[in-house]
């Protein structure tokens, strides 16, 4: 025991001195930042062998190297933008450094959130588009970049606007036009573009008129072609309610519009009051005197 303790102390002192001298020699030279997908290299110093780790968002690289040489990484080695930690490890010694991977500056893809997918004609600032600009590795491009928006209707009417994407996002508001149909909503940034479809549908019936005529022992009620206030024929399937009021009774029928017209047969009561409505829009009234 008297001999073991001095030997152990001597061994520990040797390891400590050796480690200190080796640590002085171990070093790594890493670029502060690179562009996603680009080739890069990391230089090491010292002697002996070591392992190099690059740890970052959703990705880890490992290389064995001879200290004092450079390790080259080919293009597309690091694709995800973010902060990576570079670790050079040799035995119990290690050196670390930070490496920032930046998004590419050229937009390659745009995600466009266009709302709503369907709206009535002639509504101001009702269409919104939010564009998110990504590079070819789907990293959000956070540097300011110009995004152009264009909304074109089947009638040929176009609206356009542009915005600068800050932190990867740009947005705009547009009006729905006065004619129904499927509009193309396009966002451009650089060579990237994306298209969405916005369906403009007719608005509420603007003027609702009906006529009545005898049909055997029944009354045939039929509306004139029903338009919205912009002149579009209302959508097929729109419910039109016919009401016939007589003495102390009433008959009603909810009828879907077909090709712009709703018609129905109702009981024939002399002196009955006939009325028509769709949603909250009231049409004309007819007193049936025959």
């Amino acid at each position: 025991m008297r001999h073991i303790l001095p030997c152990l102390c001597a061994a520990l002192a040797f390891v400590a001195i050796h480690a200190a001298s080796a640590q002085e020699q171990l070093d790594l030279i890493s670029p502060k930042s690179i562009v996603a997908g680009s080739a890069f290299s990391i230089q090491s110093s010292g002697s002996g062998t070591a392992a190099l780790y690059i740890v970052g968002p959703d990705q880890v690289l490992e290389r064995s190297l001879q200290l004092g040489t450079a390790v080259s990484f080919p293009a597309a080695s690091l694709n995800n933008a973010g902060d990576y930690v570079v670790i050079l490890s040799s035995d119990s010694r290690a050196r670390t450094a930070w490496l920032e991977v930046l998004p590419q500056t050229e937009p390659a893809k745009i995600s466009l959130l266009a709302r709503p997918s369907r709206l009535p004609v002639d509504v101001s600032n009702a269409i919104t588009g939010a564009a998110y600009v990504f590079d070819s590795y789907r990293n959000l491009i956070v540097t300011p970049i110009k995004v152009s928006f264009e909304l074109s209707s089947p009638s040929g009417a176009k609206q356009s606007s542009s915005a600068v994407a800050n932190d990867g996002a740009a947005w705009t508001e547009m009006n729905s036009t006065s004619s129904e149909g499927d509009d193309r909503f396009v966002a451009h940034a650089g060579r990237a573009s994306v298209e969405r479809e916005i369906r403009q549908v007719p608005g509420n019936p603007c003027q609702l008129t009906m006529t009545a005529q005898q049909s055997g022992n029944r009354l045939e009620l039929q509306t004139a072609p029903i338009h919205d206030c912009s002149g579009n024929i209302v959508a097929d399937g729109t419910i039109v309610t016919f009401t016939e009021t007589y003495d102390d009774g009433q008959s009603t029928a909810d009828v879907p519009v077909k090709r712009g017209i709703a018609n129905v047969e109702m009981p024939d009561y002399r002196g009955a009051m006939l009325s028509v409505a769709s949603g909250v829009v009231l049409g004309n009234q007819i007193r049936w005197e025959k």
Partner: protein
Amino acid sequence: MRAGRLFAALLGLATVALVVIGTLWPIPSAAAFAGGRSLLQSASTPEAAVRNLGDEIRRHDWDLAYTGLANKSDFTEFEFEHDLTGYYPCLRTYANLENFDIQPLHSTADDAKIRFITNWSTVVGPVTASRDLNVTRSGAEWKVNWPIRREPIVPPQIVPEDYLRWDVIFRGPGDDWGAQNVDSPHLSIVDMHPVQRAEGVVVLGELMNEDVVPAYVAITATLQSKDQSPIATESAFDMISHFLLPKQVTPFLISFPGQSLSGVGSIRMTPFSSLVSAAAGPVIAIDNEHLNPAPDSSLSGELVNESGRPVSVAHILGTLYNKSGQVVWVVGQYTGWALSPQDPAPFNIPIPEDLAKNAGSQRTVVTTFNYGGSE
């Protein structure tokens, strides 16, 4: 130890003895529920004859029920059975007669008239029906003359239908982030107000599908106290038409049993809608709508199926308005029978007497269902 064994043996023997006695001489009600006939009495009175018929219908013993009828030569057993269960699939097809009641209306030595009130349990809750039966004496027994309800025979034909139909393709799971989806239909609440009733708070109103596509709709109301904390949340359940075509309006009634309006500061309404595949037919016309005054105040009318095929179930909702056009109550009912094409089907929905006098006008809407989905 010996006493315990003796007690166990006695208990076993007693159990076996009781099982044997119960099997050989069951009490009438147990035999009836087990499918036997022991509950039937001698049809020595008109009431007993109707009661026997009710028990046979409850057991689905169509053969025995038909055999005992006085006027069975007027119709077949098939017609009798389907008069009770429906010629086409409907609520009554899958219903059971829960119980029945009889009310003598008139009686002489040889004939009697008895109101036969049946309470059926169906998938949408209890349904009550009644028929006035003529009962005649036949020797020592009384027999029921069944008032058969024949379904109109629709001649074989091809009826062309050109209803508009909507199908929906939603965004798929493989679509990229940001890919466009189809929006839910837009709704608007066109009227809403609370009413204090003896049983609690009731929220009444109307909901409209503002969109150009069909919508499945629902609505929830939350009563909030004056400090905005929630008191209770309820939904309209079946006091609403859950399926709305474009620009169609449905009433709704949401009940909060046991709640008082005095403690309510505000009400938060939460309408819900989703796109559904649907057709714009069939058209159901409502004729001869009447608001019948007290006593027995009710909303009555006739449903006319204007399409070419039967409709399994119709859900009728009546909105009652006061003189100023405000909703005062909502009443609802399901039809027990399928609606045959062009055959008027009467309905009569009771209205609470105290509300009937406030109702100046009404609007009735009908939602139809066929086995296999809503139409």
